């Protein structure tokens, strides 16, 4: 399959919104949350054997979380990023671990840092943090600069100060 055919198939069958960077062979595709896993299955069958990452973006103003994965095809020499949006208050999406084996570990990271649960992923337990009791730390609502002043007693202000004699 050529890149053009691939893009055509994505648009026709999954109603994807596509943008492409031609010189570096990067395809950005946006799909709805119901066809997210189907797109992943399709790409996996089409020879996208490497999964680079699964990650999330917290869009606070729109109250959604964007979940995306990036995958690569050796034959076509193309990177594809597929993204979808899920509600921020109820972040749940099927896991990709049935296709790519390393997806489970990336999803575990997103689960810990963004509080997104992946249905079908059996690995969802803390990865980096030990006994963390706060909110998911990478969400936009959690202000680190406020937190470090409270938790670690940081004394100096976050702006350059002027000392008056």
């Amino acid at each position, binding site marked *: 399959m050529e890149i053009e055919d691939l893009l055509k198939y994505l648009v026709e069958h999954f109603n994807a919104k596509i943008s492409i960077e031609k010189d570096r062979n990067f395809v950005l595709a946006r799909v709805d949350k119901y066809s997210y896993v189907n797109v992943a299955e399709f790409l996996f069958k089409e020879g996208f054997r490497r999964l680079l990452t699964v990650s999330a973006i917290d869009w606070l103003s729109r109250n959604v979380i964007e979940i995306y994965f*990036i995958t690569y095809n050796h034959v076509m020499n193309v990177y594809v990023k597929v993204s979808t949006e899920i509600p921020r208050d109820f972040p749940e999406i099927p896991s990709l671990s049935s296709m790519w084996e390393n997806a489970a570990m990336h999803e575990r990271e997103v689960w810990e840092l963004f509080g997104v649960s992946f249905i079908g992923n059996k690995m969802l337990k803390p990865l980096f943090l030990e006994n963390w009791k706060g909110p998911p730390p990478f969400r936009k609502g959690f202000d680190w600069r406020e937190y470090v002043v409270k938790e670690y007693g940081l004394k*100096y202000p976050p702006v350059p100060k002027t000392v008056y004699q």
Partner: protein
Amino acid sequence: MKISNIFKPFKTVGKFLVEKPLTFHFPPESPVFTERFRGRHIYHPELCIECKLCGIVCPNNAIDFLFEKDEKGLVHFRTQVDYAKCCFCGLCEDVCPTKALEMTNFPFLVAMDKKELYYSWKKLSEKPSLTLPSIKERKGLIPWARARSFWIVNYFTGCCFIEAVPWVASSFDMERFGLLATASPRHSDVLLIGGYVTPKTLKRIIRIYSQMPKPKFVLVLGNCPMTGGTYWDSYNTIKELDKYIPVDLWIAGCPPRVENVGYAIFLAIWAVQHGYTGKEEYVNTEHGKYALPYVVPKINKDYNIVEFGPQHPASGNFNILLKLKGERVVEATPNVGYLHRGFEKLMEYRTWCQNIMIVQRVCVLDGASYELAYVGAVEKIAGLEVPERAKYLRVIQAELSRIQSHLLNLGLLAASAGFDTITRITWGDRDKILYPLEYMTRGRVYQIYNIPGGVRYDIPLDFVDKAFEVIKYMEKRLKIYDDLLFNNQVFIDRTKNIGKLPKEMAIELDVTGPNMRASGIDFDVRRNVPYEAYKDVDFKVQVLQDGDVYSRALCRRREIEESLHIIKQAIGKLPKGPIAERKMSRGGYFSFMSSIPTGEAIHCVESARGELCFHIVSTGGVKPYRVKIRGPTFDTILVALPKLLKGVQVADVPVIYWSLDNCPADHDR
């Protein structure tokens, strides 16, 4: 097996006896010290126009202003620098319109009280000077014996440890002063804390500290444990270490230069010789909050549980739980997060330009690749066209950085296989590579050389001669590595057919870089998706078929040769012209506080450990909205390593682990 292969290494080592030693005699001479290094500032109050730009641009809030009246009654804002916070990025020097604040190459900043590192404007305007303490005089036999046999706990806590490495290697050789790195805290006198400390690491540090016999001394490298340093707003690093354990000596820098570490060692020897026995141990609540509970392990007849790391000579700050049946590993579970700083969100708090000084700190072993990936993604969003000369300069920097990273890894692999001589040699040679790298970029470990749109400095006139000198030297040394390591029958027997990574598994688990190429996959981002000037230089992608530990080591050794070849070509083809472009194609100019247009971009580069991608989202502000770093070691270590370790002998665990070239800071971020 050839008998001659066994005697060849002896012959090569025998030649070293008559050659000039690699060791720099510190003190009194220290020849790797270049003029261009970014060290302590010098302030010229008569030139200062008091615009306060240096304070605005500083990412760590290290610069303060003193408001005062002079003799004539005129009011002034004087610049003062806190070296407990400064990260020596040089942004303040770059923005200063009158060059009132300049950086000297003076790296010696050590204090027993961290308040001494706050430099008032008067102290800052003095020319820096140093007198090393004499360690010849002594008071009593016991303090003298104690000072001359410091045993240091082998715990690589953070990124500043990279500057303690030359002291272990032949280049600085700490064993001259009786210093020895040791694995057991119960036999150690000195706890050397290298850089930032996360709560997870702090628990282990407190445990190790409590196990050390008295008198014990704590030396702290870097600014992060003093005030938070670069990670002052990270949710997962400790800001003031002296709240939890007593600290004897603070060594400032980010990271402190190797000579500064030497100065600190001298001060410690001097103090202990004069009867100093360390500070009192704390008994307070802050300490107790991070105390690790003692757990008695359950005895199982079928298997044993062994923890590999984080305090282990061959692990880095990384832990893997090994379930053993006899000598064989049944199951391996990585336990990470000892170096997690939350980099991706940390970058959301800083401006596009301030991020260039933080981004290479993700992985200290190969910072240049992280710079390249970040600026590449920003350039795509902003529409910045990089000048040809800058592209070539970036290639030179990236390849020099790749060589030093591979040399470090060869040393670690050799050490874990029991070849300590190679470790001393490769790490010593790494210092030689750092010399042209520093001369070109003004930074030794963290170069901070790239900015969106180009590079910060042009190369000095005599850089080419100095670089070629080192390239020639390295080409000779590679033959020595062959004799001592790659043609050595003992090493071959130790590493062949161990830790085999099949081709299919490498693709499916997304193992990249030399680990992937050693398994027979012909993929290199530099060739397949070329960036910068890689499409104009000629190089061969090194592919080996076996996929075992030996192939991975050999692949790195061949890549060093290939990188030297690339550098020679890049220097030869270096075009003339500007080194940076500030005009953005979508309108406006890129500057220190400017915003860039809305958009998103992915940029992938070939780092020393594999494919490194940055995905950046901009919403048109002065700061990124989201940065995702796809590090090369995440899948290799967290997914592939446990599979490789299944069924191997426990003695092979360190060898397999280092053959994958882990950087714990990269997968933890």
